[in-house]
């Protein structure tokens, strides 16, 4: 699992530019599924055939990034955010483009931190002229956090755990599943979740699932003076009840609770006040899809250094495996 998560978090794949991460995941899963293809927007769809209803399991491949909007005459790059990046965590951070070009973020002179706004930030890639810079990167190119994956003992530290840890849970589950399943299970590695749950929406439309489960990270309330939230790291995966994008389907949620209890998987009940997941857009496709969310608790979501717990990840795989084996009939 560690090797897989390290490989997935290292792959480049900001929202709208998921080619590289898609290849990495496709390579991992293609021998374990009946078919595997990419759709119009770039979602990777891996199908395990079976009779009966169709269960869609989704995790998003995309990560946050910064897009170059302008290259100035001295070779400095101006940037705009791709997804929910905030300026104050960027200063001093290293970023890397798909071609390996690296750089660091800094800012024009300011008197107070609150003056730190996007138009004051720039990315320095070590070039001294526009001509030199555009040989490496140009307007429209997107950079991602440049951060190494670390094993902290019981926990993992790295960039883009959101939602490469979800992708890793799907990949691991796909590999563990037996030959026969009680229904068709379609695993979808979605694009552009960070820009508004976009890939999941068109995939949900095309696949017409009977049920859907998204696997994504969620926030925690167990750090010093944090916002109140009843989810902690290390107490098991969370079964979502509500976030800003959906109220999970009651029946789907109950199946998740009972499977966890029956199989002795420690889990948490999650109410997330802000934030959304792919399940929010899948449940509203066509005539509606009963949807639930399996969440992996994660500290410091959207920063370059996100932390997840090994036991939570392992138990998320266990629970997802049970969800795929459960005969979904009526919810």
């Amino acid at each position, binding site marked *: 699992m560690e090797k897989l998560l390290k490989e997935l978090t290292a792959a480049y794949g900001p*929202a*709208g*530019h998921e080619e590289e991460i898609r290849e990495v995941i496709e390579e991992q899963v293609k021998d374990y599924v009946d078919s595997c293809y990419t*759709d*119009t*927007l770039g979602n990777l769809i891996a199908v395990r055939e079976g009779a009966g209803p169709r269960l869609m399991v989704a995790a998003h491949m995309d990560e946050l990034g910064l*897009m170059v*909007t*302008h290259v*100035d005459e001295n070779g400095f790059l*101006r940037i*705009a*955010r*791709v997804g929910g990046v905030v300026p104050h965590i960027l200063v001093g951070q290293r970023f890397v483009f798909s071609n390996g070009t690296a750089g660091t973020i800094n800012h024009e002179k300011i008197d107070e931190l609150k003056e730190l706004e996007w*138009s004051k930030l720039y990315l320095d890639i070590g070039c001294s002229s526009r001509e030199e810079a555009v040989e490496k990167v140009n*307007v*429209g190119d997107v950079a991602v956090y440049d951060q190494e994956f670390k094993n902290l003992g019981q926990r993992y530290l790295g960039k883009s755990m959101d939602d490469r840890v979800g992708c890793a849970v799907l990949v691991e589950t796909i590999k563990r599943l037996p030959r026969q399943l009680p229904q068709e299970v379609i695993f979808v590695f979605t694009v*552009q979740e960070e*820009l508004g749950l*976009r*890939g999941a*929406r*068109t*995939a949900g*439309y*095309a696949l017409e699932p009977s049920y859907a489960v998204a696997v994504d990270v969620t926030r925690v309330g167990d750090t010093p003076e944090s916002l109140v939230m009843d989810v902690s790291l290390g107490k098991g995966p969370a079964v979502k009840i509500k976030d800003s994008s959906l109220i999970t389907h009651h029946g789907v949620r109950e199946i998740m609770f009972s499977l966890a209890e029956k199989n002795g998987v420690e889990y948490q009940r999650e109410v997330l006040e802000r934030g959304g997941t792919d399940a929010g857009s899948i449940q509203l496709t066509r005539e509606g899809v009963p949807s639930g969310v399996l969440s992996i608790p994660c500290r410091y979501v959207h920063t370059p250094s996100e932390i997840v717990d090994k036991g939570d990840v392992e138990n998320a795989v266990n629970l997802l495996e049970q969800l795929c084996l459960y005969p979904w009939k009526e919810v």
Partner: protein
Amino acid sequence: MLLLEKLVSASGVSGNEDEVRSLLKSELEKKDTGYRVDTLGNILVENPEVEQQGPPRLLLAAHMDEVGLMVTSIEDGGFLRFDKVGGIDDRVLVSRKVLVGSKKTPGVIGSKAVHLQKPEERKKNLRAEDLYIDIGVKGKEEAKKYVQTGDYVSFYSPLQELGHSCYKGKAFDDRAGCAILWELLNEGRLPPFHAAFTVQEEVGLRGALVVGNALDLDMALIVETTSASDVPGSKEHEQVSRLGAGPVLSIMDASVVVDKGMLDTLIRVAEENEIPYQFRGFNGGGTDAGALSLSRAGVKTAVVSVPARYIHSPCSIINREDLHYTRKLVELFVKEVKGKK
């Protein structure tokens, strides 16, 4: 009269696109171009050959609606209070000439005269709720003869030529796109794409949403108008686009990530044909591309825009060369992706 001039003279605030629609319909009828108007009011020009030709089934779209105001109440003194329809900066409103309702009753947006304002009031920006429309009547009863609550209000701003190469007017966003689309439809044989003149873009890409549901598409190109901010006080890196620098290609905005294949084709076509172009240096804002790209099982989309200064105000400025090159780029893009059929 230029079609663009007719189009920008028409009132077409979001949800009230009738005048623009009628104009386009009569132009289409002159050439016997078949069309239908859907439930929300979008004009769809469907080419049956598109389905026979196979992929990419291409849609070209431009929105008919413009930003404006709506009357929310009539005061006893006959003054009209209003709400904004679409994104308008409150500070561009005061002292503007407007036309109210279907009778196009002329009026002026008024505010308390400067000599009546308290010192602290003078320092503040006038907000929309501080302003009113004065249609020159004595009281509520007289006002009711001309206007009613719910009437749409559009800016009065006839097209004018500025200098040798520019036009000033309202609603270039997106009548410029409508004019380009109409010209492409009007070139003899029905071109190998579907076309849509959409409604309610300015209030949330609404018309395009149902167009995307109605048509089975592989690809959509949106012909838009975007903000040119090459003006005093704006640093180079803060500029969305520049007037006179050619069509603006979006890479991403708040509504869409442009399809890379389409973007590469647009760039290649521009370079091969010596069409100047620029990238949109801003990833906020949204266009019909957002709604279309997520329709059904997903549609590849791109956006080409005419740059316009002072967009969403009564007086925006566009450049004729930009208009010409935008049209040319769109036309050549269609030829390229449709294999010169």
